[in-house]
């Protein structure tokens, strides 16, 4: 009885893992195939390998330039989040000051507001008000500080023993010094989680950069690939391989980052981040 339910569990988990992994397999194989298959009998091709697809999509959307734009967009958000996020997280977790409760409540509320609802007013504000259409700054601003990341920092700083901070204060260390020399080195796992959580936001974001970039040379890869899929592909003879090549180029950095950080990134971190 027990053995059977164990086997059943394995079958269920394995089947689902296959369902989850299959589209990635299809993407990776198709990206390097002259003619990505549409029939199940040729899912494991033995011939027809090529890198032509990457050259073909590069000739239409400038892969390297788009990747660079994605990188600048993501890097800006990471910088803003790590610098301002540690400061705010440390303050809320460890300092007694005017506005501490307000900051905490705002952190909870902000996570409930979906970005799409702010799209019209932000578009008016940033492109018409500040004239930041087609600029990196305009792309970065709405994502500049990731609230989930601030939240994770707060939870980690809270978990550190209080006596350590008291000792440092008695020794005369300023708060900035305590944050830099004591608190930050102790929350390195949080830093890994934060980098991953923050990275996927702007790297994968489509709607906002799509709205504010009309200039193709400013578009991050998610936007230029979407343009290729919705416009260029229809007028191209055999676009499937090129679409999969672009998709793989966009997916690859995140998958690599995740595999690198996997061991720091545990379910309980995420739980503490979202549960409060």
């Amino acid at each position, binding site marked *: 009885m027990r053995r059977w339910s164990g086997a059943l569990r394995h079958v269920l988990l394995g089947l689902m893992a296959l369902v989850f992994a299959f589209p990635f397999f299809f993407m990776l194989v198709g990206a390097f195939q002259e003619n990505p298959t549409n029939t199940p009998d040729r899912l494991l091709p033995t011939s027809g390998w090529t890198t032509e697809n990457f050259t073909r999509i590069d000739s239409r959307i400038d892969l390297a330039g788009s990747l660079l734009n994605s990188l600048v967009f993501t890097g800006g958000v990471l910088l803003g989040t790590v610098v301002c996020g540690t400061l705010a997280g440390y303050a809320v977790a460890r300092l007694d000051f005017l506005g501490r409760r307000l*900051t905490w409540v705002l952190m909870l509320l902000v996570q409930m507001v979906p970005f799409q609802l702010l799209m*019209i007013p932000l578009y008016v504000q940033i492109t018409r008000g500040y004239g930041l259409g087609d600029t990196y700054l305009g792309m970065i601003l709405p994502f500049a500080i990731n609230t989930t990341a601030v939240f994770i920092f707060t939870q980690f700083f809270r978990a550190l023993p209080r006596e350590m901070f*008291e000792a440092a204060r008695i020794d005369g260390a300023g708060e900035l010094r305590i944050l830099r020399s004591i608190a930050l080195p102790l929350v390195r796992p949080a830093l890994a989680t934060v980098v991953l959580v923050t990275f996927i936001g702007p790297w994968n974001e489509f709607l906002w950069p799509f709205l504010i970039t009309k200039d193709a040379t400013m578009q991050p890869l998610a936007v230029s690939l979407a343009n290729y899929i919705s416009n260029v592909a229809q007028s191209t003879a055999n676009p499937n391989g090129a679409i999969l090549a672009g998709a793989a180029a*966009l997916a690859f950095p995140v998958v690599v980052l995740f595999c690198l950080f996997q061991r720091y990134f545990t379910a309980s971190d995420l739980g503490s981040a979202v549960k409060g």
Partner: protein
Amino acid sequence: MTAVTTGARTGRTHPSAPAGRTRRRWWGGQPIGTLFAAPYLVFVLAIFAYPLGFAAYISVHDYFFTAPGVEVDKPFVGLDNFVTVLTDPQVLASFRNTAVFLVINVPLTVVLALVLASALNAGVRWASVYRVAYYVPYLTASVSLVGVWMLLFSSGGLVNAVLGPLAPDPSWLINKGLAMPTIALYVTWKQLGFYVLLYLAALQNVPRELYESAETDGANGFQRFLNVTVPGVRSATTLALILAIITGTNLFTEPYLLTNGGGPDGASTTPVLLIYQRGIQQQNPDTAAAIGMLLVIVVGLLSLAANRLNREK
């Protein structure tokens, strides 16, 4: 506690204790905290609070885009924009499509995530491999994955080749009845890993003894799942419901790319897609803002209902 210690220290250096105490009560023991939190607070005010207010303002005015520097009167029109929006068949259809999406996506997400998380939690070999497999779609850009699904589910695609004579005609993404369910399936697949992790974290807090005593009482695996696991992760379920509702009511990338702009014939149009089309393509930010405000209200009511429903049981 920290406040008390520093308080004692500053108390020694400032002999005028009463004045210092009042100041401390106002600004706290470490007033520099205000400075630390200031960038984040300014960010939240500028990027969330102000635009929310601005959206409400736009939605009750006859608002339109003007050339930079030109000041034109934008008169207050009360609820006119809302009347326009609520009598627009396309808008009503987009909310109906969202309902179709939620009815498929939300139960599927919550049930599958909980089943997979408890299977993982029972301690199987390769648990970490499974976890990675489930989580990777959540991490990957929707634009990438939509590209893959589009090919898989196209008329001559792999899915139809496997189904053979069972393949729907017209195919998934160009079939009026199947476009929205296919999107719902896609989003369930893409987001599920996040909910599995959420439940995995919640399952760590269900006491082992409950399972043991249920077992001694003769409960089988399914009964234990129903009577110990499900009530044990109730608060996680509420959170999962609310997050799934928020995600589901804010679809843009999927209908924009997967069904080529909400097609066929508007069968997969979503409110956010309409906000984009009305507000930015057709330059009517006022009606677009009104759709947005309606969406906030719908999301709020649905979340409240999910919360209430889950608490009563």
